[in-house]
């Protein structure tokens, strides 16, 4: 019965998402497609951080690797074979997962704080490669690619919807499987998990590789969506946007970060731009990022458990 309800809810959501281009202007559809791909990044971050409790601050490394891999497979900059678009996106995921495996083996023997610090410096290491070898990676400007996900904006939106749906569904299946249970055991008490015979290092690395794979897929898909690859996909502001979305949505829930990702991305790229215009006459140093960071700081201090939990608790109090 419960399964049936879920299938119906899912079908309605998908039908709604698929019908959007019928009555929404194209510029907004374009943003919506990007928001869907951004949601993949947020959910894949949640698979690692929300389920194992290890704070990965280098998620954009895998986004960038996926993005550059896919872009290079679409250009003649390296003497690489040119792959069809779907294959290059999958390759982006695989290369990201491979790098994730190596980084995971090195760092996941360490406990929490070291992992956070080491992963925090990684995006900068990878970002430097772009500037060191500008002939290959295009330097600060990045480079454009020829073949995108599809020709028209609406087709691109459907492609993004498909990629996001498949990616998020697979991640959801993984965290709801016995593997997910073991990850949660690690999050709750790592020593206890080890004591009952869970190979914690193996499962942590597994979660990290899965997380990296989908970050790579997301990065690669974004490149094929907007047709440009640039170092912003490695950069810290993107990392913080992912964190912000996941935290607002509620860590370790998949659905929460997915909705958080969609809302935050649209808020930043649509609504905040208009808010900033209101402040323009004041000549104060305010832009969309400043407002976003201020919101994040205030939310974090007032509701350290996340907005989702915070609201749930408040409702409980009012009822009780």
């Amino acid at each position, binding site marked *: 019965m419960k399964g049936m309800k879920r299938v119906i809810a899912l079908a309605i959501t998908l039908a709604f998402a698929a019908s959007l281009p019928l009555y929404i202007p194209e510029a907004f559809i374009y943003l919506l497609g990007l928001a869907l791909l951004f949601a993949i990044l947020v959910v894949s971050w949640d698979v690692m951080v929300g389920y194992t409790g290890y704070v990965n601050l280098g998620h954009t490394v895998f986004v960038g690797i996926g993005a550059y891999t896919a872009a290079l497979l679409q250009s003649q900059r390296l003497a690489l074979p040119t792959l069809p678009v779907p294959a290059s996106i999958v390759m982006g995921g695989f290369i990201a997962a491979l790098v994730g495996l190596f980084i995971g083996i090195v*760092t996941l023997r360490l406990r929490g704080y070291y992992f956070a610090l080491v992963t925090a410096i990684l995006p900068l290491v990878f970002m430097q490669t772009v500037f060191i070898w500008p002939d290959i990676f295009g330097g600060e400007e990045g480079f454009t690619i020829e073949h995108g996900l599809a020709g028209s904006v609406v087709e691109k939106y459907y492609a993004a919807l498909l990629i996001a749906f498949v990616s998020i569904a697979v991640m959801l299946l993984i965290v709801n499987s016995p593997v997910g249970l073991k990850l949660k055991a690690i999050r709750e008490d790592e020593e206890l998990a080890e004591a009952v015979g869970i190979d914690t290092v193996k499962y942590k690395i597994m979660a990290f590789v899965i997380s990296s794979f989908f970050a790579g897929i997301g990065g690669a898909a974004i490149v094929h969506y907007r047709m440009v690859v640039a170092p912003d996909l490695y950069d810290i502001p993107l990392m913080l946007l992912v*964190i912000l979305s996941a935290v607002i949505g509620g860590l370790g829930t998949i659905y929460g970060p997915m909705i958080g990702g969609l809302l935050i991305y649209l808020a930043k790229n649509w609504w905040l731009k208009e808010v900033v215009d209101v402040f323009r006459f004041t000549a104060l140093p305010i832009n969309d990022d*400043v407002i976003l960071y201020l919101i994040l700081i205030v939310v974090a201090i007032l509701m350290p458990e996340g907005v989702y939990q915070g609201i749930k608790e408040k409702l409980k109090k009012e009822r009780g």
Partner: protein
Amino acid sequence: MEGLSAELLLRIIVFGAVASGIWALAASGFSLIFGVVRILNFAHGTIFVLSAYFGITLTNYGVNPYVAFVASILFAGVFGVAMYKIALSPIRESKVMVIIVTLAIALLVEQILMMTFGGHGISFPSLVEGVVYVAGVPITYKRILTFIIAVIALISLEFFITRTKTGKMIMATAEDMEAAMLIGIDTEKALVITMFVSSILAGLGGLLYSQIFATTPIVSLKALIYAFAIVILGGLGSVRGSIVAAFIVGYTLAITISLLGARWSEFVVLLTIIAILIVKPTGLYGVEE
């Protein structure tokens, strides 16, 4: 050829000393605050840069550089304490939130600085003028002064922690907060003092940096990354480890810049650190958590 390589060696020695001193200041403060309060302060690099911008602004308004120097260090300390009191103290128990909030503060300040001052490099006026020639290589007095101030500050820090009553109080809090509370130590006060000391070390580092190198808002990230790298290498929470690691990083930096060029600097330094971590995962002086 021989003369050239001797000159290069001397340049590396001087540059390495200056870089090591500055990064040791930034990293020891970061390590101190982690060791005592168990928070990763991602806004540490922001304090580093903020004190430099504060000092530069004061001198632009005609304040004497020495006065501005001292005022900026104090400003850094006050900023750190205010940040702790307002934003960090209520969420201290949640590791993830502390990281998120301090990271958001860092990016917020960076954006505001960028919009107020622009992205071009600016510098704090030299506290001393003049050049000394050693074997034909010019060494500015301000570089020598920077190194001396850094060394004095680090020795004072070591003395403060190990010899003074307040330092011992802080160390007791770091060791076991509940036990420290039980024997009557005001642990909240200890945390505030730690935050203050950590921030003035960052502030001093930033001022010394901006006296020699062009400072931009992005330097906050650079300072943070170097502090991370050094602390990872030296071992989290170990101030002494940070100082040793700062010299390793400083000289790796100097050699890389001299031989390969500046754009390789961060890449090589961070790769070195990752290589060391593969061999020794808890850093040089690190302890098992």
